[in-house]
């Protein structure tokens, strides 16, 4: 019981942190609350299914690389066409992204002719036993990839020039423009990165844990990333990691202790959101969260 919570919690938490990192990146840089973030998670899983099983029957390891790239390009195009024209108005952004999410869900339902689930292959077949637990190679690989990507992004944002431009745009937009940075291009790049991260998380979760992909799988990841971001504070990479671990462990614990009731698991991120807002309305780490003055 306890070792299952520790190991599985560690593995899912890392993926959740990666998912929320994408969400907090696009919010921090361009101020867009992307309610379609979970949609890209779902599209990632479906793209992986298309590449490996549905249409092309390619190697799953190739799908793992190709699907996030495709989703990243889709995210960039979506941003340019749908989100960028309404970026100044907060309510319109929310409406546009919600509409995008529902439209994609319907599109997937139509595209799969009303199939409610499609099977997703594991990235690498087989499993090993560790500490009395059967762990699939896929889940270990997913954990490793998430951790590696997280560290890569950390370095990318703090050291590389483009990443510095992203941070600058989040701090002061006008000054960044005056320094000669094409902010629209920075936004598009951020969106591509953010959606690609969501896609990686989607592939990891669906192929290593669920084994299926379904059109309604966009809401839970969205709620998760919101809970993590509220916990950890906006735009903070460290906070997102800690928040991801708290939410991931909480969910795994509930899932392990109450294995029969699926509806309780979906409430976990919601309860965390409400608890944080009631008990510590500034988030765990202070002032980064946007609240009333």
């Amino acid at each position: 019981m306890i070792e299952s919570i520790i190991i599985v919690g560690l593995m899912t938490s890392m993926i959740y942190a990666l998912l929320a990192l994408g969400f907090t990146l696009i919010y921090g840089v361009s101020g867009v609350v992307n309610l379609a973030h979970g949609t890209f998670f779902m599209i990632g899983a479906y793209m992986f299914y298309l590449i490996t099983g549905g249409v092309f029957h390619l190697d799953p390891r190739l799908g793992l690389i190709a699907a996030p790239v495709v989703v990243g390009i889709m995210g960039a195009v979506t941003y340019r066409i749908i989100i960028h024209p309404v970026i100044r108005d907060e309510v319109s952004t929310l409406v546009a992204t919600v509409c995008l999410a529902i439209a994609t869900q319907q599109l997937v339902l139509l595209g799969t002719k009303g199939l409610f689930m499609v099977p997703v292959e594991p990235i690498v077949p087989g499993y090993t036993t560790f500490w009395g637990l059967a762990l699939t190679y896929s889940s270990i690989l997913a954990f490793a990839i998430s951790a590696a990507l997280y560290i890569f992004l950390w370095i990318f944002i703090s050291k590389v020039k483009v990443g510095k431009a992203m941070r600058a745009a989040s701090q002061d937009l006008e000054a960044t423009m005056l320094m000669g940075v094409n902010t629209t291009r920075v936004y598009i790049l951020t969106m591509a990165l953010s959606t690609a991260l969501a896609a990686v998380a989607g592939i990891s979760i669906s192929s290593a844990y669920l084994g299926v992909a379904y059109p309604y799988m966009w809401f839970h990841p969205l709620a998760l990333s919101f809970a993590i971001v509220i916990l950890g504070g906006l735009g903070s990479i460290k906070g997102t990691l800690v928040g991801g671990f708290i939410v991931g462990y909480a969910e795994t614990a509930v899932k392990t202790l109450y294995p029969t009731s699926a509806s309780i698991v979906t409430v976990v991120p919601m309860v965390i959101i409400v608890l944080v807002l009631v008990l510590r309305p500034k988030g765990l780490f202070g002032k980064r969260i946007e609240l009333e003055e």
Partner: protein
Amino acid sequence: MVTTYLRRAYSSFLAHVVDIPPRLLAFILILLWASVPVFKPDGYTLTILVSTNIWAIFVASWDLLVGFTGQMSLGHALFYGIGGYSTALLFKYFQLPVWITIPLSVVVVFSFAIILSYPALRVKGPYLAMTTMAFALIASSVLYIFPEITGADSGVRKLPLLFPLKLFRREGISALESVYQQTLAYYYFTFISLVITLLILYKVTHSKTGIVLVSVLDDELASKASGINVDKFKVMAFALSALFAGYAGCLQVHFVSFADPGLFALTFSFLPVIVTILGGIGTIYGPVIGVFVYQILNEIFFRKVIKIPLEIYQAKLLIFIAVILILVIKWPRGIGRFITDKLKDLEEARDIDERGPRIWKTYKKKGKKIGVIARVRARLKK
């Protein structure tokens, strides 16, 4: 030449049609809507119209919260569901009659909203949107956690109707006809509820309170600095909006005679967001017009009049959302709002023109009736 003609037609449109006083226009619309049963719609259409009336109350309450105080709510179905479930449970456990459970459950929703506004109003914008969504989802999960009380998926069934069928059973009337008359009674009841709701909301938003609410939306800090208790007004708007949403939920539950978790559905929370884009935000009547357009297009026109094939009908939500997406990119404040704003601009432009000698004189010479607003404005500007 064509453009001249068009322009002339347009200015005559402005002079004659737009200048109908809004009160008269509203009165005409209400009269038209009240006289719908005169056209003898079939039972299906009438049922759709009843639920449209109920949904109109719901979206109007949403607009009070979002359009006037700017507190984005993506979980408004919460109040709808709480209203519906509380009246259902009050009947199930205390066997109270409908006319007592509905006011009681409205009170329940009101107090719930005041309690919930404590955590919800600490946050703004997207956080509030997500928090309200979280509330709605938690509520719908609570139903599954206590299945013996709420009945989980099957919900609470066999609730009493507002107008029981035996009221309409008379000699010489077929069963079908009496059901139709029952629906007709529902239609008028929901319609009167809708009109009263709209009147109350309109009065609230066009009074001093409404001005305060808009000032909170525009600049919270400045309104605070002017000595306004911002929190009080926010809680008031939240609770008032919840009250009407809960009332709509009660009506719905006693119309279909059951309450199930579908009342809390996420798609239902998104409905006001979608129809507001059709009607225009921050107007109260905008979303109401939007929901009528949506329902009439969706359920009556496409299904009964054109009879589009089923494959396309299945894609209707997708098509609808795609259209909304294009609209929100093009006109972020809604089509209705776009048109009225444009007309206002034109009227102002015309006022400026009128002050110039030429057009003012032509209008005067021809003895054309100029709208009350335009006349008052012209007088003020002199």
